[in-house]
């Protein structure tokens, strides 16, 4: 694709702008900002990736992955402000998931240890874990607040913090995992996943593309389970003080 042909696709930006103007949706400014940002960010990433791929240096790969984790952590932590030390808890979760994923994939020789594979897969893993962490934190903090009486009841009867928070924790973990499991039930039937579509458009063998996509699907299942479970078990102790009392936070 040339830049000229790419510019033709801006028609897809003009349509929502036209609709927004006509229907007084007042989304013109946001649409333009989103378009400009996506052009700049993706082009910048494209050139950075080109440089990293050509350099074939593990230092640059490490730097790229670290940057992804830092940005994902910063994005997700805003949803868990009521949890003490949430930034580190998210960062640890993302690092553990990344290490686990890459160890299995590279360790068993599923994919070659090149920048193309490591960075692309890391992007999917970290991005997905970030969304799951946000879903989990949203649900967990809401569940704990909504079930405060129940949590205090269990404490008052001589339960441990872990016993007291068990149900909200399980519910939050389940809620954050369900979208991943549900979307995988209809994968290929309703939506063709982005990576697979990308490979097919780029001329890859569709069966080969499906194999890679299946690998990602399996990987995202682990991702979904690990990110919410890890984050949950790292987070819940900070809701209580050393006297096993549920800490009340000012809203």
């Amino acid at each position, binding site marked *: 694709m040339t830049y000229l042909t790419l510019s033709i696709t801006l028609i897809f930006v003009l349509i929502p702008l036209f609709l927004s103007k006509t229907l007084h949706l007042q989304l013109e400014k946001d649409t333009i900002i989103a378009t400009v940002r996506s052009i700049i960010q993706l082009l910048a990433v494209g050139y950075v990736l080109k440089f990293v791929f050509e350099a074939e240096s593990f230092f640059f790969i490490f730097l790229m992955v670290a940057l992804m984790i830092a940005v994902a952590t910063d994005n997700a932590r805003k949803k868990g402000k009521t949890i003490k030390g949430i930034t580190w808890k998210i960062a640890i979760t993302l690092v553990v998931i990344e290490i686990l994923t890459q160890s299995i994939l590279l360790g068993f020789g599923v994919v070659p240890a090149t920048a193309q594979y490591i960075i692309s897969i890391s992007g999917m893993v970290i991005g997905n874990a970030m969304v799951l962490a946000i879903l989990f934190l949203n649900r967990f903090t809401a569940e704990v607040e909504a079930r405060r009486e129940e949590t205090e009841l269990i404490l008052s009867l001589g339960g*441990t913090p872990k016993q007291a928070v068990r149900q909200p924790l399980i519910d939050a973990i389940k809620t954050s995992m369900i979208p991943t499991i549900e979307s995988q039930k209809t994968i290929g039937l309703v939506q063709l996943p982005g990576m697979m579509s990308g490979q097919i458009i780029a001329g890859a063998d569709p069966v080969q593309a499906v194999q890679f996509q299946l690998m990602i699907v399996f990987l995202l299942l682990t991702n979904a389970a690990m990110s919410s479970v890890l984050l949950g078990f790292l987070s819940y102790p900070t809701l209580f003080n050393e*006297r096993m009392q549920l800490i*009340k936070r000012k809203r």
Partner: protein
Amino acid sequence: MNDSATAAIHFQEVDYAIFDVTILKKITGSFPKGKITTLVGPSGAGKTTLLKLCNGLISPTAGDIFINEEPISSYDPIQLRRRVGIALQSAPMIQGTVFQNLALPLELQNKKLTEKEALHKLADVGLAQPILHQKVDDLSGGQRQKVSIARTLMNRADILLLDEITSALDPTSVHEIEQLIIDLNCKYETTIIWITHNLQQARTIGHYTWIMADGEVIETGEIDILTSSTNKRVQRFVQGNLA
């Protein structure tokens, strides 16, 4: 009342505040061991907060609380809460059946409750067998309060903290629960602290009373102070004129 040596619970200059709002101010006094002490006072006086302090659900911001002459901070929180049971007015429940709620205190200690034991406890609070496997969401306010009392009794606590546990009950049930608590007190010498808005109930069941208002204890003593006190605020409260 102020002799901490015979006290099950003793408060010494206890303050409690949260988010810069003072709930309890300089609370000093004792709850005698093996006796029933009623806690009366207008809404917002800090009575429920005081009970939560005794159960260790919250801690004082200043002052000390002693349980059986030992500082409350020296107790393991889990052991403390099993020895000092609390039943709240709101009667919170875990999702599930009456049986699951009754079994909860034992399950928290990895023990099992038999159906026979559960039925026995239900009978103690005046509830019958058919309710045992009913969902708690289907219970009336009064039934919930009774299940909550039965559940609190499961831990066989030395000290029982009861927060308006009969407020949603009919007169017959109120009498049954009062008798149950009096029996527990007589048979096992369980120390009872009972919050009530019903002054007649306070006079009937209590040996001692604490009268609270605006986060302070305005008078403590034997139960007849409710009628004989010369304290103007107590008199106004008894006459229903203390907001």
